[in-house]
């Protein structure tokens, strides 16, 4: 039996939209709400809820500038968020590396 232990999945990042937001912000210094709406292809309401969740987890910073119609919500990733994303990605890669040989083994046995 394999001694491989599956890494613990971070529940905050284990959501398609939240993962998309985090990856986009990881590649940038900061981005506004409009940019995140476009890149994640999501609705404003859903995006707001996911951003609030990431903010509560301390993974992103949210700042508002301007007034009224001209206000802008800007998000940026925190050091904690960057660490969590990197650990999550590493965990996925480990799981993927474990899955691929197992699948190959199954294919050989089936042959």
């Amino acid at each position, binding site marked *: 039996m394999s001694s491989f232990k599956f890494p613990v999945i971070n529940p905050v990042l284990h959501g*398609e939209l939240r*993962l*998309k937001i985090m*990856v*986009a912000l990881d*590649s*940038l*210094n*900061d*981005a*506004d709400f*409009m*940019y995140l709406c*476009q*890149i994640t292809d999501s609705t404003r309401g859903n995006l707001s809820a996911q951003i609030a969740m990431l903010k509560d987890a301390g993974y992103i910073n949210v700042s508002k500038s301007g007034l009224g119609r001209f206000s*802008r919500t800007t998000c940026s990733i925190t050091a904690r968020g960057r660490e969590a994303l990197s650990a999550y*990605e590493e965990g*996925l*890669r480990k*799981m*993927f590396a474990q*899955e691929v040989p197992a699948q190959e083994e199954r294919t050989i046995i089936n042959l």
Partner: protein
Amino acid sequence: MTTTEELDLISRVRGEVLSRKELTGENLFLGWGYPTAIVLLLEFAALLIWNEDWCSWLWVGIPLIGAPLMIYFLNEDYERTHSRTLEQNVILMMWIFIGFASFVGGTAMGFAGVFPSCYCAYQGLLMGMGCFMTGIILHFRPKTICGIIASALSAIPLFLQGDLWPWQLLVASLIAVVALIIPGHLFRSYVRRRNNS
């Protein structure tokens, strides 16, 4: 989502962010370059005509005109891209620091009474260094070369002392043209070409 789907999503979003990256900041150099060159020329003319102490404080006009222009152009860039990359942020912070160092240095030199002997060389060197480093970060060679030339030119004001000091302002204005205006126009046409293609 499966592991493969999640890894695929990560690389897809990274690729999309990369493909949306636009070069910006093409007007920032001109926004600082023209006020610097014009104010220094006015200061030079004022010193030749009136030769009063207040004339040497005219340089304060540079940040007074340049800073609002910078804020305006930064907002304009953000309206266009809705995001800022790490490189853009590094360049922005570097130029804000250069502006701050230039302002604090100029004020200190003014009160210490050494403004005529040092300021133009100091400001020229700061502009040249900023231009050189921006060129390196953006991989834009004309900026790097202009930065080196401007830094070399910043030594000239040190040889124009005594009664010749107003001529330092003329050299500093030339440095602003070499470090900010020429690379600013070259970068602007490069950015427009690249973003349109």
